[in-house]
């Protein structure tokens, strides 16, 4: 795959871009890893409520050095703090929030996303790997909107946006939007629609780096 003259977004820039689409008052679960970065880019004038599977709502930034509490961690087992107006609850209620459609947006990482919104992010199917799933499948089926944040291709240049998954599925038809280092994609009934691209890249360049057929939003009515 050849880079011509376009700029690839950094991980922070993808996070910053995704943060812009999270509205005031949203209840949001940020998946472990890359999506966690979004928290840093949420504007101060919005109340965005961060949920963590292990029983936190409206948690805040990491504590100051020396203030860490081993009993105040998020699902990624990182130390966090609580905002005024936050709450603790048990795992049953926490997953009721997710499975019951109360979380407005979750942002997940991905191994692959298919054109129909199928998501693979829990297993590569490798024979010797120990399987582990955590809350990924619950978030995939339960959140009102599922956003994916990922590099557009793997480190070896293979497409992560594909026509059909080759990895085991986490959730079927669940992804609504994809933020990559190259573009923003909406998953629609008519397939993947490109709504934004990084400066300098052409639609043809982007299509070449993608394993599924893309549509340019400017051509969709």
């Amino acid at each position, binding site marked *: 795959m050849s880079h011509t003259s376009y700029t690839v977004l950094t991980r922070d820039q993808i996070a910053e871009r995704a943060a812009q689409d999270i509205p*005031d*008052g949203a*209840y949001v679960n940020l998946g472990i890893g890359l999506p966690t970065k979004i928290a840093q880019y949420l504007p101060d*004038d*919005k*109340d965005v*409520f961060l*949920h963590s599977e292990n029983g936190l*709502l*409206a948690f805040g930034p990491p504590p100051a050095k020396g203030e860490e509490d081993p009993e105040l961690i998020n699902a990624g087992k990182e130390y966090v703090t*609580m*905002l*005024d*107006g*936050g*709450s*603790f*609850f048990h795992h*049953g*209620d926490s*997953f*009721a*929030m*997710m*499975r*019951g*459609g*109360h*979380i407005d947006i979750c942002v997940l990482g991905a191994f692959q996303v298919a054109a129909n919104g199928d998501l693979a992010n829990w297993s590569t199917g490798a024979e010797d790997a120990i399987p582990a799933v955590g809350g990924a499948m619950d978030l995939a089926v*339960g959140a009102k909107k599922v956003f994916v944040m990922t590099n557009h291709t793997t480190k070896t240049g293979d497409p992560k946006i594909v026509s059909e998954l080759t990895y085991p599925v986490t959730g079927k038809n669940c992804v609504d939007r994809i933020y990559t280092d190259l573009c923003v994609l909406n998953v629609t009934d008519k397939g993947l629609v490109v709504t934004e691209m990084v400066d300098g890249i052409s639609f043809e360049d982007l299509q070449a780096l993608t394993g599924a057929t893309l549509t340019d939003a400017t051509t969709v009515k």
Partner: protein
Amino acid sequence: MINKADKNITDVLSQIKDGATIMIGGFGTAGQPAELIDGLINLGVKDLVIINNNAGNGDHGLAKLLKTGAVRKIICSFPRQSDSWVFDELYHAGKIELELVPQGNLACRIQAAGMGLGAVYTPTGFGTLLAEGKETRHIDGKDYVLEYPIKADFALIKASRGDRWGNLVYRKSARNFGPIMAMAAEVTIAQVSETVDLGELDPEYVITPGIFVQHVVQIQPTSTEPASDEYASTATTATA
């Protein structure tokens, strides 16, 4: 910034339309959101489906709502009480539909809705008239009835204190169905006796996290009312 406590009863309730399915908290009158029900009566919507444990007591609250003829159907566990004459009359006149549900199945079906489950196998009611025609299954030596979630467009509940993010705590046995109804409705409207600042409710002891509550309406206690749970129907804009 989110302030779920910035509207008065009239404005909040105006989003309820004819034909709505509405959960109303309370066990008897304890926890019954009397002022929200009065507001619903004033709104004048009709063809409602109401979910409550009972079918109204005396001539106030839920009973008064029934009397207006606004309710097409009620889903409840115990409609027959010494003071349920309003419902009795409507029922005998064929003017209201009743879906009778064992109290624990009512609770569980409301919980199933809040939890996003498709259905549950419950042992309650197996072999009884209330399970007639329902799917059953023998699991691990015991018989169960398949029951489906009860969802609602709105839940009207009563809590004791709330904040602008919708966090709630309750008072004694007035809690009853409030927390589970809040989880099962598209829009939950809670009347509270007091609105408090963010952070005043201890995060360890928030009973209903704000995610389940869309509106908080403070009901001002008046000195003319004798009992501590009786307040005037005047809604005030909450400060938060």
